[in-house]
């Protein structure tokens, strides 16, 4: 089981990485718990999750090779 985690904007500054691999997470809630434990400042940030490029809300089941992106508020344009 390997979940690829992508981090953007200020979130990659908080974690010092724009890509991470998490091996023990069967859902987005678990994944967020793992990440917040590893990077406590991430818990203070405002972001949404996209699983395989689709925004998700609530808990989503994850399977091997899923790509989860942590997206801070958009500021394009």
């Amino acid at each position, binding site marked *: 089981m390997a979940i690829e985690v992508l981090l953007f904007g200020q979130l990659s500054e908080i974690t010092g990485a724009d890509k991470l691999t998490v091996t023990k997470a069967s859902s987005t809630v678990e994944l967020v718990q793992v990440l917040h434990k590893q990077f406590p400042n991430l818990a203070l940030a405002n972001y949404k999750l996209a699983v395989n490029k689709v925004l998700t809300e609530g808990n989503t089941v994850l399977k091997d090779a899923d790509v989860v*992106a942590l997206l801070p508020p*958009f500021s*394009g344009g």
Partner: protein
Amino acid sequence: MAEKKKQTVLMQGPIPASFIANSIAKHSSKTNIGAHSIFLGQVRTDVVENKTVLAIEYSAYAEMAEEKFYHIRESAFKKYDLICMHIYHSVGVVKAGEMSLFVFVSSAHRAAAFEACREIVEQIKKEVPVWGKEMFEDETHVWKTNT
């Protein structure tokens, strides 16, 4: 709907005025067009805590952003009577005074072009995973927030 093919929206660096001019010129052969509506987003020298923004460095979740741009484009073609549409957004550093967003909508009559252009710009700001890092003269930065 002649140009409804998939296009790449994200382009590296600022959008040159010459690129915009060329884009306009290319439409002279499409004589069913009666109205073009163009939005240009330009990087502004905002002042945050007495520091002036010199440039914005844009980054994107490119794959998801292109999908969102595609979706925005498709829904605008469904909703409005448009002849063609082009969207370009910068990634990388764009200095103050340079352009970072170019939305170009063409229709037979002005109402559709005006309305679609505005709606597309609002959707881009709200729905597309692009981030702007506002860079100051002292090499510090803040992350831009859209209002």
